[in-house]
């Protein structure tokens, strides 16, 4: 701290020089911001301006730079100094582009700009240049759990990139579900006929690969650590347990077929001639190229009926609600087993929507060309009658309640159920509610555990505070919630791939596993450099924890959206830096404020809001603090400014990493410093949440719901703190929200807390 030297630079370009008294701003930076060096420049972002700053860093010993120019989102490269801490005061988008260019507004516009200079200087002073995670570890091996096609792909692709792999498969051989297939659906032009599966070839390649170590009949009985330093206990059926180190993990635990025993109405279990898709593969494999026989009596098969969506796309709640995406092509493939062998065998596929996207259309056409009959219909029941079955269905095209009475085989296209292990969220949710004072969920959860019912078996056995498996998104799939970022599971360094992530076919699983491996390798590399993973990739800051102040309240360990924080024996939090995504949710959660980041802390924000000049209650100049999510609300404000959408000159905006990082002390400080209100602008939460840190905005909502008491104690109206869900496209709505809120503040009057 001793050698800290803050320099403030004020740009006069883009109209800043015309609209603002930059000399006065410089004065503010000097006097109030206590900047050691203050310079104005007519065009700060050009080569000359940037060089000036660089020279000061090199020659003047500047360690902290405050740039009063445009938004932090603009000219990022020009002002991207990596050797000093940089704060940006947003004078362009934040002030002159949102304020009317007229005489009446001149004074409030200047005041706004001066406050941002004060805030920028205050922030700069409290920032430190992040030095990288000191706990960085560099184990570069990849652990792959699951030896099906997804897992084998991950292993082979990682090896090809030069990484070593430990592959753990619970059964006695590699191949998984794909290993049981007679043939696969085609993955290459001309997409006309079933192909051989790649299983044997891949298994041989793995065996021949010195980079890949395989454990068969084995599970990961315990995994602890973090990216770059995972330690996995691998228990082999023989009773041996070995420990392997890994830098990252790919979870490729696959799927199980939905249990057709749940579908007695479709004849399963009532006739040996009703099989699921796996059953048909078994028959096809067993036939070894000769005609597939009727299971009940070994008789000739002359007619096969495929029932699509069996126990799927179900809205009754009894079966799978989703579509498994691959069963249509599988049925076409299986119908071809018969048609290719003997075109005289009748094959009928009864479907409601045939779902064969992309080149699947070629495969569909090929099926038709081979004489497979497709009929849009709904099967109501399958009755067994001797060695044949009667399939009752509604032909939706001919609007005919009809039946196929003489089916020798009926194949039910049941769906994929992910092997994702324990659903850890139900417990977590209960714990969060309990932390907020509602114990009912936790009690219910405990009761459900006590009943001794069949509990799902963990896939990974993570030794994590928040539970042994990767959180599930929906229906047990461990998919990412983010459309743009499909690999963002909530466990850093653990990437799921293949049908455990979402229902998919083999070609997709292989592509998916390759992508997951990419992310895993990247996690290894970044962990080694002490850098954050997505979405703050490259961020070298990490949570710094002051243990002496900690009250062991567990809020941080429970609320961390990424399960990055464990607990030690004394229930103190243990930060696993390379599992951390730097969202600051722990910082926001901490009631005693012992968690901070070098470049983002309770102080960097707190000192900014305190730096604002709050006029007295007779000034008719209220002040409202806006804490805005830096990814959505803040860009929305920027774009509103680009549109020159005007909003009140009495607000002061501070971007935050996530509303989850907002510590209630900021609200308290703002209100006790005389602010008239606090607006928090964050992302949508709920089922379709848009928070990039998963739960940040939701947690903020929960925390703020309790702020009412504090306000009451302070003698303040509830409306003085308000939270809004804002999207990045709300460029007209956000200015409107601000103005509406200001009107409300006007209505309830100035805060009585001013001047204390």
């Amino acid at each position: 701290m001793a050698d800290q030297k803050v320099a403030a630079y004020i740009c006069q370009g883009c109209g800043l020089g015309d609209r603002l008294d930059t000399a006065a701003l410089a004065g503010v930076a000097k006097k109030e911001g206590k900047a050691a060096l203050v310079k104005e420049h007519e065009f700060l972002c050009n080569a000359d301006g940037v060089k000036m700053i660089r020279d000061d860093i090199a020659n003047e010993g500047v360690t902290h730079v405050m740039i009063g120019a445009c938004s932090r989102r603009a000219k990022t490269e020009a002002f991207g100094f990596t050797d000093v801490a940089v704060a940006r005061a947003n004078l362009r988008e934040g002030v002159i582009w949102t304020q009317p260019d007229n005489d009446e507004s001149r004074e409030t516009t200047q005041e706004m700009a001066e406050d941002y200079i004060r805030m920028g200087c205050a922030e700069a002073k409290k920032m430190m240049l992040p030095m990288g995670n000191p706990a960085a570890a560099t184990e570069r091996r990849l652990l792959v759990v699951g030896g099906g096609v997804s897992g084998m792909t991950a292993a082979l692709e990682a090896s090809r990139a030069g990484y070593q792999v430990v592959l753990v498969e619970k059964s006695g051989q590699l191949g998984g579900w794909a290993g049981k297939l007679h043939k696969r659906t085609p993955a290459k032009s001309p997409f006309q006929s079933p192909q051989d599966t790649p299983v044997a070839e891949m298994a041989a390649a793995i065996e021949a690969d010195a980079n890949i170590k395989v454990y068969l009949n084995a599970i990961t009985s315990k995994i602890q650590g973090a990216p770059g330093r995972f330690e996995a206990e691998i228990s082999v059926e023989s009773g041996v347990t070995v420990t392997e180190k890994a830098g990252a993990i790919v979870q490729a635990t696959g799927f199980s077929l939905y249990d057709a025993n749940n579908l007695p109405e479709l004849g399963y279990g009532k006739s040996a001639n009703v099989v699921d898709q796996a059953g048909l593969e078994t028959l096809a494999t067993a036939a070894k190229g000769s005609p597939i026989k009727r299971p009940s009596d070994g008789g000739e098969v002359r007619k096969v009926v495929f029932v699509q969506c069996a126990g799927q796309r179900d809205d009754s709640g009894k079966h799978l609600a989703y579509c498994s995406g691959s069963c249509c092509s599988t049925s076409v493939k299986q119908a071809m087993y018969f048609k290719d062998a003997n075109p005289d065998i009748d094959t009928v596929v009864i479907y409601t929507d045939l779902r064969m996207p992309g080149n699947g259309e070629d495969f569909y056409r090929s099926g038709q060309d081979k004489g497979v009959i497709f009929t849009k219909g709904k099967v109501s029941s399958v009755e067994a009658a001797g060695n044949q079955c009667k399939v009752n269905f509604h032909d939706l095209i001919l609007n005919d309640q009809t039946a196929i009475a003489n089916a020798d085989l009926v194949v039910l296209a049941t769906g994929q159920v992910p092997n994702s292990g324990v659903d850890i969220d139900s417990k977590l949710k209960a714990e969060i509610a309990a932390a907020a004072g509602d114990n009912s969920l936790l009690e219910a959860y405990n009761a459900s555990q006590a009943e001794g019912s069949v509990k799902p078996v963990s896939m990974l056995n993570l030794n994590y505070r928040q539970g042994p498996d990767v959180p599930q998104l929906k229906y047990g799939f461990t998919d990412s919630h983010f459309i743009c970022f499909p690999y963002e599971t909530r466990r850093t360094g653990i990437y799921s791939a293949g049908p455990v992530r979402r229902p998919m076919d083999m070609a997709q699983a292989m592509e998916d596993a390759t992508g997951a491996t990419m992310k895993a390798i990247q996690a290894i590399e970044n962990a080694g450099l002490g850098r954050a993973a997505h979405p703050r990739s490259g961020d070298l800051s990490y949570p710094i924890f002051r243990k002496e102040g900690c009250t062991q309240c567990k809020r941080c360990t429970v609320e961390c959206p990424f399960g990055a924080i464990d607990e030690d024996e004394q229930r103190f939090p243990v930060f696993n830096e390379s599992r951390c995504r730097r969202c600051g949710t722990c910082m926001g959660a901490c009631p005693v404020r012992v968690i901070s980041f070098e470049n983002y802390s309770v102080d960097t924000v707190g000192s900014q809001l305190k730096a604002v000049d709050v006029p007295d209650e007779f000034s008719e100049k209220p002040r409202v603090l806006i804490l805005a999510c830096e990814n959505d609300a803040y860009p929305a404000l920027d774009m509103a400014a680009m549109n020159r959408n005007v909003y009140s000159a009495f607000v002061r905006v501070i971007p935050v990493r996530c509303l989850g990082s907002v510590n209630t002390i900021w609200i308290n400080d703002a209100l006790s410093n005389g602010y008239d209100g606090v607006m928090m602008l964050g992302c949508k939460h709920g089922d379709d949440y848009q928070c990039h840190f998963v739960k940040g905005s939701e947690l903020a909502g929960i925390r703020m719901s309790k702020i009412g008491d504090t306000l009451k104690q302070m003698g303040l109206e509830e409306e003085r703190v308000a939270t809004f869900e804002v999207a990045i496209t709300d460029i007209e709505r956000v200015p409107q929200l601000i103005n509406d809120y200001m009107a409300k503040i006007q209505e309830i009057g100035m805060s009585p807390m001013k001047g204390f």
Partner: protein
Amino acid sequence: MSENYSNSFLREVEERVEEGHWVKMCMQCGVCAGSCPFGPHWAHPPQEIFMMIRAGKREEVLTSDSMWMCTSCYNCVVRCPRKLPITHIMHGLANYAHRLGIAPKGQPTEHFATLFWNNLAETGRVNELKLSLGIYFRDGFSQGIKNAMAMQSVGLGMLKAKRLNPFELFAPHGVKDKSGFHAMLKKAREIEDRRKPIA
């Protein structure tokens, strides 16, 4: 019931109906049904006929009036996403039903089409006068007179416009090589019957 949704009728159509091998390729989008100028007059539009064939509804299909509604406008053909030659399949099905003798009784287009072919086959060229008289007199002599009287103004107009020749009845247009022409058609029919035998 036992033969529904089986290959048997579909196979029959594939083997014996012009362009019948396309029927299996229909994906039931219905664009043909919506594209036909006589659409509302079809009890079963083409796409439904294709489904009926695949469902094994032989009687219903072959005795249907629907195929006879085809005006040969090719709207369906150019719009079909699977490029089915629907016009020809409809012609083929009608022809097959006609050959089997199970087309609906008194189907007017069947009657006209037969007259037309026989008319052209006789001399090698169409005799328009005989053709129209044939139409008017299909339901007997007195109805024929009535029909002809009803269309008298049209006929007279055509006559006046030199677009109808009363002498066509006696000295019709025709090819010179009648024997070669007839032998050719006879042979063609023979081959056709061999290629597409009637059950």
